[in-house]
């Protein structure tokens, strides 16, 4: 909806005129700068604190000033967009599902597809838990509530297996303590992203772990645009991001720690890809569409 900006058209037009030096016309309803928030997508924590290269690259790509905010809570991200305090979000699948439910007109810009992004259930090698079905009656360490690969994803897998997540298993949302609790054998099973598994194996070479189940590849992380932005700006951003995908990806990788994206690519994103996520929320009994 660009309609509501019609009132201040005159003022913005003047402003745009003075700035308009290199770009094409028809931008009078574009904001001065884009407010961009990264909601702390799992595995991209490093971007939270070293975002300058990415920010600069994005500014170049889109050709606008960008105000970058690293936000560490997913609820804040979606609420900020709901109340038009942010224009573009980099969100994980779980967050996207939330945002879409509170801001139905929100637009997808592009997805980042990353290598090996799925949930896994892990047990100690010497335990007698071999399949997902064996998990019943045991305790499972997961990440924080709402985490895609560490809560929503694995929960869906359990539900698909016919396990009642409230009754049949003891799910503990332990966040960072999940590894230690698992290593300590306070919990028998750890459900988390597959990358975490690899890291854990690396760190504790001498201990044996067994993957008892792996989930389907999870949907991509996405750039989401606020419906308050003019349509042509959204379209423009969508195009330029996909055009400059390699440079953008490099700017994320340059920080050195985001190896999760090493094999990643930028792709087009569509809303249907996230139906599985919504489905999972629903199965978890969390109503996403109430607002």
């Amino acid at each position, binding site marked *: 909806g660009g309609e509501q900006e019609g009132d201040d058209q005159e003022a913005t037009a003047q402003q745009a005129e003075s700035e308009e030096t290199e770009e094409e016309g028809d931008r009078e309803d574009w904001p001065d700068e884009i407010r961009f928030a990264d909601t702390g997508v799992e595995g991209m924590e490093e971007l939270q604190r070293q975002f300058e290269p990415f920010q600069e690259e994005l500014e170049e790509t889109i050709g606008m000033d960008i105000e970058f905010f690293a936000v560490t809570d*997913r*609820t804040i991200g*979606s*609420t900020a967009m709901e*109340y038009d*305090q942010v224009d573009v979000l980099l969100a994980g699948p779980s967050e996207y599902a*939330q945002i879409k439910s*509170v801001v139905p007109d929100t637009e997808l810009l592009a997805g980042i597809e990353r290598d090996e992004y799925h949930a896994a259930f892990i047990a100690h090698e010497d335990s007698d838990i071999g399949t997902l079905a064996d998990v019943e009656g045991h305790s499972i*360490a997961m990440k*924080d*509530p*709402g985490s895609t690969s560490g809560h929503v994803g694995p929960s869906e897998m359990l539900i698909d297996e016919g396990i009642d997540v409230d009754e049949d298993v003891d799910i*503990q*949302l*332990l*966040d*960072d*303590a999940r590894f*230690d*609790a698992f290593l*300590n054998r*306070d*919990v028998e099973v750890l459900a988390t992203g597959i990358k975490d598994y690899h890291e854990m194996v690396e760190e504790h070479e001498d201990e044996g772990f067994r993957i008892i189940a792996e989930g389907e590849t999870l949907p991509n992380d996405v750039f989401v645009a606020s419906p308050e932005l003019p349509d042509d700006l959204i379209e423009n951003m969508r195009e330029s991001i996909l055009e400059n995908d390699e440079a953008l990806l490099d700017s994320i990788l340059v920080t050195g720690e985001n190896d999760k994206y090493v094999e990643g690519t930028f792709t087009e994103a569509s809303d249907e890809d996230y139906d599985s996520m919504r489905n999972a929320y629903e199965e978890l009994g*969390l109503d996403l569409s109430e*607002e």
Partner: protein
Amino acid sequence: MPKRFKLPSPATIIITIGGLILFILGLGSMEISADRFFSGIVNMFHFIIGAFPPDLERFQTALVAMYETFQIALVGTVFGVFLSLPIALLASRNTTPHPVIGYVAKGFISLLRTVPDLIWALIFVISVGLGPFPGMLTIMMDTIGFCGRFFSERIEEMEKGPIEAVQSTGSNQTGVIFGSILPLGVPSFVGTSLFAVEKAIRGAVVLGLVGAGGIGVELSVAMTMRQFDEALMMILLILVVVIIVEQCSTYIRKKFIANA
């Protein structure tokens, strides 16, 4: 002639000017605008009103979680308070056996406070496993960091007269502590301790980290899932408990405040 109107000491000047500069710089970086604030206030009310009425569906679950949290918080703070007292006595300038011990104790208290809950939780999960026990230990550490500091501050502020009076009887240090420092400090100690209980309840998210559940986890799940009406219910529940604890505090303190 009035001697007190002398120039402040260099340290004072440095602290004052340094603080001021930092404050002004900070203020400048803040992009404060009343405009921004007021234009958003409608949104804010929209949000807050959106959470009404509180969702009572999961009230019972919340109540049970609250009860669990309260128990653990109580046990953790009780232990914490009992450990804080001797540490605070070691740390306070006017009761420490030796200045060096005082500095060490103060530093220790600061350290306990500085280490984040998450790390305490990790440490205790590693050492004693999951459950209420590590949660209690974490709360205990928090409490020592908090009460240790405030107890010691109160002890240093105490009027010297009654303490000297007990000292003048030739009492040993135990007598001085129990005979004057504790009685004089009781109102404040009670207030601080009950605040610590309350703080432990409010900060009970840490219990989630060690798998002990409780109201903190419930609340944070409700928030993450954007069930603000449910969150509101829990906040109100916590508020009720907080106010009850505060009333107890007022009641007990009243009994000890001179002439109250």
